Every structure is written in C-alpha cells, then in structure tokens.
C-alpha cells in the first residue's frame, strides 16, 4: 500500500529510489479494502519467475533504487521469497517485507533473517479477535499476534500496519496498547485509499469525522506517554482535509512498482487507469520503462497540469494530488484531485463523506475480495 504521509520528502534526482515488487496477487485473505485490482486473478499463471525477478532487482540497483518492498497479495505464497531477499541483500537494498503474517512460520522467518531481510511490516485490523477475523474473511487474528511476537523475538524492526475504517476507528486506544505490549517499533495507522476493492465498499468503510478526531486524540496521548519508544504515524485522510496527498512524491518521481506479471507502474493503483498502457519487464528493461515509457512520462513534472493546479502555489508541494483518484472520480487523470478543496469536483468527495455518515442510509454488507465477487462485479459492469 502506498505510504501516505510517511514517505521522506526527498528529491530522487530522477532515480527510482523506491522499488516495490508485487510478487503475486494471490492471497489467503479476503480483505474488502484490498488495493489489488478487482480482477486480481488476471495474473494467475502469469507471474514473473525467479530469474525474471532477479533481473528486475539488478536493473533496479543500476537505476539507483535503495529501498525495496516485497509485497503482494501475500508474498509468503512465493516459495522463492528467501532466494529473492538474499539476492536483494547482496545487491545492497534495504529489504522490507509487507505481509499479512499468514504463511510466515518460524522456519521461514529464520531463513529470511539469514537472507538479510531488514524489516517486516505486518498488517493488523483490530485488537478484537472476532472483528478481525470477520473483516479479513479468515481465522487469523491469533496467528497474526503470534507472528508479531515472533518477529520481535528475532530482532527485526517491525511496522504494524493498521488500516483505518469505520469498523475499527474507535479501537485506536486498544490497538495502541496491543502494539506497545508487542514492542512494535513503528505503528502506522494507514488510511484506506479508496480505489479498487476499497472503492466498492467505500460507503461501508469511510469513518466519520468524529471517529477520526477521537482516534487522533488517542494517538496524541500515546505519543506523549511513549516518547521515543514507538513511532506512530497517523494522518487525517485526504477525504476529510480538503487537501490532497502529495501522492507518491509525484508521478514517476521516486516510486516504481512492478506488478506480478511484470507491468511497471508509477504506483500500485495506477492500473485502474484503463486507458494507459503498462508495458512489462518482459518487453523492456527497467531503464526504458522508467525513463522512456510514455506512461511514466505522462504526468512526470508539472507540465500536464490544468487549472486550478497550474497557477496554484501548492503545486510543487502536492503535485496536484493523486492522478488515480482524479481519474477514478472524474474520469480524467489530468484534473485536479477532487480531494482538494479548490477542485471543481470537490463535492464528489464531501458528498461521499456525508452519505457515509448519514444515519438513514441503507446498510450494505461488505463485498469481500473473492474471485466470485470479482466475476459478479465484472458481469454487472458489462451489463451496466
């Protein structure tokens, strides 16, 4: 998941400092906010093999990449993960594993440590067993807690990643206490970004402003209590701020994501722009994809901007917000991100917030991330 608010602002001087490998879209969980494409099974049987990933790693270092994320789907489903981590370590990356914890047993943890893995980011949805298991569509709460403690016992720095939505926002204090008990180094309350599965479930997931304010107060109290012991990231989501996020530090600026089938993406959500082509590492080397690909050049820099962005004093700070969000909500990626209060489309965002908070709205069940749901959604889209 892109790290809203936790990315160090820096000028990559045109280098893809941050490389993210989505090793697979397969996952044993069914999170209804999943950021993977709705048709996530498109890459089944088509994933890059070990040697292809190793080539990506080599070419990434040649381009100056330093930070490396192994993610998915669930990267533990790849049994060559240890081999890829070892190769990445040899090449000089800072290696991060982003996992749900499912499949991370002690044997593999030791192997990953030996392969030089630097950091593990584990997702947790709630401090409550029943709620967690129902939200992720699997029995995994106890396992996640066990894995969290095991990660710490092997001395890995750990980020606990907690997606924030209506169902868990009021548990912030309990989650903070649980993280403290585990000995987490970084606790990240990650606002859901409403694309793909999260967009389908937006009305059921959006927290209320009052919830976010309570959560923020709990975070502030914990920061005062814990001082340096735990770093806590918490940002009020763009939907509530009237201010867009400086998405990915700008398009094609420092981030490069490779999808399971080798497609090069400026961010993990970019594939939802169905009118852009996303060539793969099977057709081109990484240098061409990063430097020459029309998709990466399209929104690089500030020249693509229109009003109100083009004459705005904020444009070098927030880069006009998120291109994917502009596309998804307005149908045109060149528009100002509707999360911005200056966007003529800002009403789309404030309406969604108001609708989700309306006590009279019809409650809908969460649509879980399953192949069956994907098929049904596809059929609905085809038949209008």
């Amino acid at each position, binding site marked *: 998941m892109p*790290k809203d608010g*936790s*990315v*160090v602002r*820096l000028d990559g001087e045109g*280098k893809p*400092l941050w490389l993210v490998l989505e090793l697979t879209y397969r996952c044993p969980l069914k999170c209804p906010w999943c950021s993977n494409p709705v048709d996530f099974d498109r890459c089944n049987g088509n994933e890059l093999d070990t040697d292809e990933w190793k080539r990506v790693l080599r070419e990434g270092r040649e381009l*100056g990449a*330093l*930070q490396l994320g192994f993610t998915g789907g669930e990267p533990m489903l790849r049994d060559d993960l240890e081999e890829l981590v070892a190769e990445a370590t040899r090449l*000089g990356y*800072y290696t*991060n594993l982003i996992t749900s914890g499912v499949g991370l047993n002690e044997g593999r943890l030791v192997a990953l440590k030996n392969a030089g893995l*630097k*950091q593990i*980011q584990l997702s947790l949805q709630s401090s409550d067993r029943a709620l967690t298991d129902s939200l992720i569509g699997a029995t995994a709460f106890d396992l996640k807690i066990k894995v969290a403690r095991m990660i710490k016992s092997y*001395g890995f*720095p750990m*980020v606990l990643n907690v997606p924030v939505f209506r169902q868990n926002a009021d548990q912030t204090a309990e989650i903070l206490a649980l993280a403290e008990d585990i000995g987490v*180094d*970084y606790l990240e309350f990650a606002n859901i970004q409403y694309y793909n599965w999260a967009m389908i479930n937006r009305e059921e997931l959006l927290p209320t402003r009052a919830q976010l304010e309570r959560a923020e107060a709990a975070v502030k109290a914990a920061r005062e209590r814990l001082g*340096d012991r735990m770093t806590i990231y918490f940002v009020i989501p763009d939907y509530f701020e009237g201010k867009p996020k400086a998405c990915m530090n700008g398009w094609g600026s420092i981030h490069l994501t490779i999808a399971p089938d080798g497609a090069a993406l400026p961010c993990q959500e970019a594939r939802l722009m169905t009118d852009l082509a996303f060539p793969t590492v099977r057709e081109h080397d990484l240098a061409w994809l990063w430097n020459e690909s029309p998709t990466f050049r399209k929104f690089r820099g500030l020249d693509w901007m229109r009003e109100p962005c083009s004459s705005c004093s904020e444009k070098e700070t927030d880069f006009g917000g998120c291109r994917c969000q502009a596309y998804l909500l307005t149908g045109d990626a060149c528009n100002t991100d509707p999360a911005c209060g200056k966007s003529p489309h800002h009403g789309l965002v404030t309406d969604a917030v108001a609708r989700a908070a309306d006590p009279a709205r019809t409650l809908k069940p969460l649509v879980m991330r399953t192949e069956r749901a994907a098929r049904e959604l596809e059929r609905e889209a085809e038949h209008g």
Partner: protein
Amino acid sequence: MTEIKQNHPAATDRYGVNPMYLFRWEDTQNAYVLLYPEGIVKLNQTAGEIIKRCDGEHTVADMVIELQQSFPGDDERVADGVYRFLEVFRAKGWIRRQA
C-alpha cells in the same frame, strides 16, 4: 547527590549506529546514506564522516582529532560541529551511545 545522566556527548563516549538503520556508501548518490524502515537519508560529507566513526571503537575525542586532521583550519569549529552533530543524530535516533 544523584548523578544526572546528561544527554550531551562526552569526550570519552562511544557511539554506534542504531541497529535498525543501514549505513553505507552509495555510489549512485556519491554519498553516504542511512536506510531505515520507510526512509532514506542522504548524508552530507560532514555527517557521513562522523557517522562512519560511530563504530563503537572511536571515542568522541578520537573523532574530533581525526576530523580536525581531515578538515584543517578552524579546530574549534570542527570540534563544536562534532558535538553538535552527535547530539542531533542521537535525538533523531540514528545513533546510540554505547554502554
């Protein structure tokens, strides 16, 4: 009288890089870098030279002497700089005082 543990570096202190961080030379940046969960710091020359000596071996006094040799001229300014930088780096969590 109880002794108050000062946060300021002392001449006999030794520092080490926080084990959560990876510190190394990076050719593509022509600089020392610090890599850590979710972050990259590109260090300027002075910062790089100081952190290189946070190896658990050098005392602060050793560092000062070596840096005064590498950057001859104003010895007092170099010494001040080392102390000031160490304090900042420790506050940022990049380095830790060795027991």
